[in-house]
């Protein structure tokens, strides 16, 4: 069997730590297929980055040096060339803002199946993945022929690794500059306002269930009474009710308080990714099947407009 090809993720000279979970997923699949695990790393100074991911279980690291900041056109061209050279059994990438930006195009151009957002990968006599649907309330076991492109959810596979001894092989590929029609100009970070939710030890976090902007008053008064900082899920920020620096989740801020109190938050995947390091998660939601309960230590199924006023009384 030909090797598994894993595409390492990095930005501004730093390996995305979720890449180590991706490497674990790729090494596991290569073991199941009884084949080698190869890694490709594309970017500035790739030999240096290759040292950081030279872990036990990786056979070869293919490097491609480009002076351009992340560019999906270069990724697609480089990985297509490498695909034709080593004919991998499958390609694995993270299901992130980067992976979802080039993998679907790569699948179309190589004309291979695309298996998005895998939370489990198995190979016995065929390639199978688990994929969550309907806001994480249903999962689908999907199968496809090899080779396939799989985008892998961050934070699912273990990230512990041991040093390895992979050979590092620079790729000799010529890029068609005329086909580069996308250019990164700059990066910007969300400025932190008067509140830094990443340092708060007690977060009272509000979601779509609050229904109306006027109801935020109840949230703020409850938070004040118990000494909590108010944070929120994405829809509250999308609606413009709270600034972006209050948003908890994958694209907002990852938090790690002693207590995360989730009020009317259903628990989208991207939100859960941002709260996993909380010590205790307490959730109040009217939907008993809300995915937030799968991440919580304590749960209250009920109407937040009945429970919050009672909770406020407890701290008065």
């Amino acid at each position, binding site marked *: 069997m030909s090797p598994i090809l894993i595409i390492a993720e990095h930005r501004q000279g730093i390996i995305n730590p979720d890449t180590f979970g991706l490497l674990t997923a790729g090494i596991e699949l290569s073991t199941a297929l009884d084949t080698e695990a190869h890694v490709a790393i594309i970017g500035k100074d790739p030999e240096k980055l290759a040292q950081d991911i030279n872990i036990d279980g990786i056979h070869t690291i293919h490097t491609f040096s480009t002076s351009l900041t992340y560019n999906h056109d270069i990724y697609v061209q480089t990985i297509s060339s490498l695909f034709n050279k080593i004919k991998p059994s499958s390609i694995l990438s993270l299901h992130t803002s980067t992976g979802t930006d080039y993998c679907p195009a790569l699948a179309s151009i190589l004309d291979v199946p695309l298996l*998005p957002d895998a939370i489990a990968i198995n190979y016995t006599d065929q390639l199978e993945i688990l994929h969550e649907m309907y806001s994480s309330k249903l999962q689908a076991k999907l199968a*496809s022929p090899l080779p396939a492109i799989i985008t892998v959810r961050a934070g699912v596979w273990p990230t512990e690794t041991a040093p390895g001894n992979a050979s590092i092989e620079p790729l000799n590929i010529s890029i068609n500059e005329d086909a580069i029609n996308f250019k990164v100009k700059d990066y910007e970070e969300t400025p932190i306002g008067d509140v830094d939710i990443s340092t708060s030890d007690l977060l009272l976090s509000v979601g779509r269930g609050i229904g109306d902007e006027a109801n935020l008053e109840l949230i703020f008064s409850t938070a004040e009474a118990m000494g909590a900082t108010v944070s929120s899920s994405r829809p509250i920020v999308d609606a413009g009710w709270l600034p972006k620096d209050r948003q908890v989740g994958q694209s907002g801020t990852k938090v790690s308080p002693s207590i995360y109190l989730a009020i009317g938050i259903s628990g989208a995947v991207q939100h859960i990714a941002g709260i996993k390091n909380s010590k205790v998660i307490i959730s109040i939601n009217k939907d008993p099947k809300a995915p937030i309960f799968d991440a919580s230590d304590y749960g209250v199924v009920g109407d937040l407009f009945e429970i919050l006023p009672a909770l406020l009384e407890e701290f008065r």
Partner: protein
Amino acid sequence: MRILVAITEVATPDDTIEFSDKSITESNFTYGLNEWDEYAIEEAIQISESTANSDVISVTIAPPRAEKTIRMALAKGVTKAIRVWDPQLESLPFVDPRLKAKILAKVVSTISPDIILTGVQSSNDCWGSTGVALAAEVGFNWATLVTDLELSGDVAHVRRELENGVDELAEVTLPAVFTIQTGINEPRYASLRGIKQAQQKELETLSFSDLSTDPEEFQSNINLIEFSLPTSDNTIQYFEGTPKEQAAQVATIIKDLGFGGG
């Protein structure tokens, strides 16, 4: 400027999902527009309103049931709608992103849009992949996770939302596909006048034979083995009782951990 907006209909998140190994029972669902597509429609309409000689055409792969949802897009200001459906799709549990892209690509070639907008993902399928697959299929450029879009000649300046509070500022040459992230704008509600007008607007239906001389090319290369409920090894303690009793138990946990003056 001609803008194509690819939109999808979804079951609302509160719906209880009934399913067998291979199919989802859809009869108990309440349907509506996919949340991300609400923002894509608004962005398309805003661009058309500020650009002379523009029209916005929507395309949806869905059974006849979806026409009520599609009329809502027309009521908001979409000029014309296209709905693609085929008996071949009825037997599929879902339409995988590459198959979606292949079908949509045929529509793109008939209407020749300058730009294509679609939501980052649908809340039912959660592929998060169709926009980029479509771009590659039709040879357009693309930008994903767009939270700001400014067109200037044949270039688009975009803000892309990455992880951990980091945005990327990028330029992409048109024609291009943009996958639109929630929060990019404030989606409008349809006016009563818009709802009335929507009934008169064209909603064209196309089947595979309208799109290709070889309907066999619309095959999925992904098979469903089975649907199942998510398993969880999480242990959770639920607080029961009246709201007051539930609140008291929550307060006890918070106070026991040293907060709230406990």
